[in-house]
């Protein structure tokens, strides 16, 4: 095996150390700092963006909360106004109803009074008319004059019997 030929070992190790050393120098001074800075920059950028997103989200949530509060406030005040006007309407309605009832009662009363007056009046006339009719009827039927006093008495008896 060529690997076990010691004559090439020194040269191999010499060039290994040279190339490895140069590569180490190039990477540690050039490539690795650059890669590290790229990764770090990205890390910062991403975490910055995440922070910003978090802040914006919080702001949006605050706005939403404000909005919801405003909506709730508006709803309560609307309900209150609605209730108030409903109460007012109900109160006015009740008042008018009462007034109307009173007026109606008054009118009924007046009408009843009138009716009773008319009734009494009618009842007071009925005797005269009955007497007249009875005397006229008796006169025609009997052909004789019946005294008004007698008729009146008879009518009184009839009317009195009725009540």
């Amino acid at each position, binding site marked *: *095996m*060529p*690997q*076990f*030929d010691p*004559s*090439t*070992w*020194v*040269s*191999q*190790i*010499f*060039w*290994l*150390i040279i*190339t*490895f050393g*140069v*590569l*180490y120098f*190039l*990477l*540690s001074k*050039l*490539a*690795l700092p*650059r*890669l*590290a*800075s*790229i*990764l770090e*920059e*990205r890390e910062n*950028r991403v975490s910055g963006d995440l922070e910003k997103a978090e802040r914006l989200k919080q702001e949006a949530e605050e706005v939403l909360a404000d909005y919801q509060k405003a909506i709730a406030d508006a709803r309560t005040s609307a309900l209150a106004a609605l209730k108030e006007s409903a109460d007012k309407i109900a109160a006015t309605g009740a008042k008018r109803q009462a007034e109307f009832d009173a007026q109606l009662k008054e009118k009924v009363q007046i009408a009843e009074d009138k009716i009773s007056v008319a009734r009494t009046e009618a009842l007071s006339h009925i005797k005269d008319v009955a007497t007249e009719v009875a005397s006229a009827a008796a006169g025609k039927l009997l052909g004789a004059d019946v005294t008004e006093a007698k008729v009146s008495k008879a009518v009184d008896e009839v009317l009195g019997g009725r009540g």
Partner: protein
Amino acid sequence: MASGGSHSPMQQFEVNPIVALKLGSYDISFTNSALFMVLSAALITVFLVYSTRGRALVPGRWQSMAEMSYEMVANLLRDNVGSAGRQYFPFVFTLFMFILFGNIIGLVPGTFTFTSHIAVTFAMAIIIFLAVTVIGFVRHGAGFLRLFFPHGAPLWTAVILIPIELVSYLSRPISLSVRLFANMVVGHVLLKVLGGFVVMLGLFGVFVLPVLVSIQALELLVGALQAYVFTILTCIYLHDAIHLH
């Protein structure tokens, strides 16, 4: 397929000098192995630097891959070592990328896999082993030796436990390096042998070709997995040195 022939499955592991160099009495020739190390390092650098040139907030495909590899190794280190391991991140990341690219590039036919050489894997493993040991002693002083005796065990068990722990600790660089080296060698030998079959069987080779393709896919997975395993074990050793179990 006699060994030594041009189709030997071992031929692909031969280290051939491209530019002969000498440092004192040592041969430090720029070889095909060195070429692919340089190529891997260059590709890693180009990949990571070029893909991130736009520093895009929303990454494209290439930048996404660079970020994924970064985060994968970062998570690996954090999960296994904790925040104390942060300072070792560039090393662990370089290690992972270097092995990963070495393994993956090596799977391109005709290339050389430098991670298939024990000299390379053992050098990496022994450097990690020594570094971890130094880190342990620097952080805990002599207290680092408690690593070899589990806390709360009866004192007399020290006779058995300390040698076992010591042997397991000292065998770390061997197991770490041999695991990667052996996986790479076996995978490439298998691919080479199967490839040889396909050619040898001529027309009937098409029946072996799907096997070759699936083994190639498997080797891709093994290459990534071994890079991961090497890295995670490095992290675990670091954890031991920093937190003592």
